[in-house]
Each structure stands twice: as C-alpha cells, then as structure tokens.
C-alpha cells in the first residue's frame, strides 16, 4: 500500500516536471522585429519589394515599405507569419505563409523579410535585436519594503 502510494507520488512529480518543460518549450516569448531592408548575400544585393504587409495570428501588425521596421510579439518556438507582398506599385498582391523557427537564446529577433522572401540562409535573415546602449547611467533604485502594508490593501 505504501509502495503504491509512493509510486503514484513519483508519477505525479514526473508528470509535473514534463508539463514544466513543455510549458518552457511552448511558452517562450519573443519580440519580433520585421525589417524591409535590402541585404547582401554572396555579393548579390537583394532589394525589398514595394510593400510588405505582415499578418500575425490573422491581424495586420506591420505595413512596410523600403527601410521600414515593424514589431509583434510571439509565444512559441515557431512564428507563423503571413506576408502580403506587393512587388511593384500597381502589381497584384501575393500571399505567402512562413513558419520561422525562433532561436531560444534571443529575446528580440530581427527577421529580414527581404532575405526570407529570397530564400536566404536562416542565419542571414535572422539576427538578435540589440537595443541601443543608453549613455545616461541609471541611478540606484531605492527598495521599498512594506512590512506592515499600505493603506491600499494590495490595490
């Protein structure tokens, strides 16, 4: 009876550990930055189309022309994005769907849509978003410890 109970407990712990890893895998959040900028691959310059509309989860998140950048957030290991591409002004639009695997180690991922559209290598169109360094030094934050509680009752 005791052994049986112990086995149930071990199974429960294992199930919870598996769920934890699953959540870490499917719940990793990224901020995606979509660039519509010309890029050079193997000496060949790829130029952006006239206009790229980016849809994420059925919603338009960016409408990009040459040199523009758009942004969206994505939860999960692969970003499902839909690009509505207008190659030249007045030419018919083309819908293309992509599943872009996202690197776990990056919080912000820059996707160069020009590279993606021209089937460039993964490493060439994906890069890490590095925020611009700020010159102002941050002053020390005073830690507010509230042992006795404030009047707000956690509101």
């Amino acid at each position, binding site marked *: 009876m005791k052994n049986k109970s112990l086995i149930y407990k071990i199974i429960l712990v294992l199930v919870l550990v598996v769920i934890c890893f699953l959540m870490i895998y499917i*719940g990793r*959040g990224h901020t995606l930055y979509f660039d519509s900028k010309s890029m050079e691959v193997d000496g060949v310059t790829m130029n952006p189309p006239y206009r790229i509309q980016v849809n994420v989860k059925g919603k338009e998140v960016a409408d990009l022309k040459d040199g523009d950048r758009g942004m969206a957030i994505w939860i999960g290991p692969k970003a499902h994005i839909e690009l509505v591409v207008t190659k030249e002004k007045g030419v018919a639009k083309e819908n293309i769907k992509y599943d872009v695997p996202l690197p776990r180690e990056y919080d912000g991922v820059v996707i160069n849509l020009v590279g993606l559209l021209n089937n460039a290598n993964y490493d060439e169109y994906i890069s890490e978003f590095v925020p611009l360094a700020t010159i102002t030094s941050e002053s020390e*934050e005073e*830690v*507010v410890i*509230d*042992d006795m*509680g404030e*009047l707000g009752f956690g509101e």
Partner: protein
Amino acid sequence: MKFDLKKFLADRSVPIMFIIICSVCIPLSGFSTGYLLNEIVTRIVRNTFLILSLLIPIMAGMGLNFGMTLGAMAGEIALIFTSDWQIWGIPGVVLAMILSIPISILLGTLCGTLLNKSKGREMITSYIISFFINGIYQLVVLYMMGPIIPIIHEAIKLPRGYGIRNTVSLLNLRQSIDNLISINVFGVKIPVLSFVIIILLCLFIVWFTKTKLGQDMRAVGQNMEVARAAGINVERTRVLSIVMSTVLAGFGMILYLQNMGNIATYSSHSQIGMFCIAALLVGGASVDKASIGNVFLGVILFHLMFIVAPKAGTVITGDSMIGEYFRVFISYGVITLALVMYEAKKHKKKKMAEGSDDEK
C-alpha cells in the same frame, strides 16, 4: 422549532452592516450600475481563489490562516522566474503554478509543524510566521537573486546588479487567463475561463469535504482529542490542511497577479492575508465556520465597499482620503469584531457547559 430573529440577526451582523454601508454609499458615489458590475466581476475573478484557500484550515479547526501569505510569496517567486525566463501567456501562468508548488509545500509544512506546537494560538502564530518568512523572502529576493540564484535579465534586476526591482512587469502574462475565453453581457466583461477555474476549485472543496481526509479534518476541527481517540493522526491532518491552503494560496496569488499585470515585489503579499480574511468575515464566516457562500458574499460586499467608499467619502466630506481611511478601518474593524464575537461565543458556551455540569 421557533424562528429566533435576534439570533438570526446576531449571526449575520457583519454582512448586514456591510449591506447597509454599501446601500448608503452606492447612491452617494454616483457610479453607474455597469461600472460597478464590471468592477465587481473583475474583483471576484481576482480575489476569490485566494479567499477559497482559507476554507480548508478553518475546517480543520485551525482558524483563519494568516500564513496564506507564505503561499503568496511562493507564487511571487515562481512568477519572478517565469518572467526572467520569458515564458509568456497561459504557459507562463501554468509554469508559475507548478514552480510554486514545491515552495508552497515546503513553507506550508514548516508553518503547519510550528502551528502544531502552538495549538489554540494558531492565528497569532501564523500571523507572526508570515512576518518571519517575509524576512527570509526579502533575503532571497533582495540579496540571493543574482549572485546565487541566476537571474538573466537586467531589466528585472536592481541597477546595482543583484536583487529584484520594486516592480516586475507581467505585461506578457497580463489577463492571459481572463482574456482567453471572455464574453460581453450587456457591457459587462465576463472572463469565462477564470470563473470556470474558480468553480472547479469550489467543486474540489465540496468533493474534498466528503473524502476520508476531509472527514478527518472535520473531526480534528470539532474535537482533537476525540479525533485522536478515533485513530486519526491529528498532527499530520493539521499539517496537511495548512499545506493545501498554502499551495492554493500560491495559485491564487498567481491568478491575482496575472490579473493585475505586475508584481510589487516587496509589498504585494504583505497584506494579502489580511484583506482575504477580512473579505471572508464580511461574508458572514467566523473563526470556526466558513462556507463557499461566505466567500462569494464577502468578495462582493467587501470590494463593493472598497469601490464606493472613497467616492462617497469625497462627496460627504470633500476629501477622498476620508474614504480611504474609512475602508481601511472598516476592514481591520471587521476582523476585530469577528474575533471578539468568536471569543464571546466560546466563553458563553463554556459557561453554559459549566452550568449544566453544576445542575447534574
């Protein structure tokens, strides 16, 4: 059996008092029905899970568990990790809940064991334990997170390089459960999934009271000596009730904070026990008796007063702070009143028992 109006009113004096206060304050505040309903629904979703976590220790005769703060701290630590690992949305909430379980079990066992050493003084002991553990929480979060416990992101660390900031943003978790399935009824947003979770917990509590362990807890709550004579391991049962309450409080705190959208690292948990207990008592519960109905009535009345009192105070006195003070002194006052009434009842029962013994 004759209906005793005096007893009926005396037993329900606190909720009746709150109904009167609210019915005076609502027209004075001038808030629309739609606004009040929206606010009440938000607060039911935010607080009910936490308050339900108090029911099990009351069933086991351990009174109002001020130690639920321990579970709240466990929930906060789990959310800090989830935020640092950038796990967003529902997976982030689920991960935080699972991560909080071992911390809650550890703290709950510690609290339950200490409460077994102070039988009859559980409430004051659990209140002081929460301060003691708060000191350890501060040590962990303020000094150990960074140099000893790895924290990757600078954004949640203090500028000095270790310790967690006063506020941790949960923007990417914010209302992920509330918004997953929600409907709009006459302009009132009803977060269906959150209500389903609360109802599931209510059903669990109802089911649990009928299990062997639930019956053991009831027996221990009614009379420890009789329960012991019946072969129940009283100490273990009491510890289990506190562990269950702490784990549920941890889950409740995670649901509360995902609704709020940020963690006030050093203060979110400090008053959570106090206002959950106040809400439960406002609903008509006592130190030794509480039901799911008390929880819902308490959340509605207590938070209705929270919403309308500042505005009503402004209308009456011209100063909104009067309303703020009013709602705070009412909250502490109701806890005091409930404790005094409980002691008075106990004293009366004891006297009556002594009287009947003398007659024999």
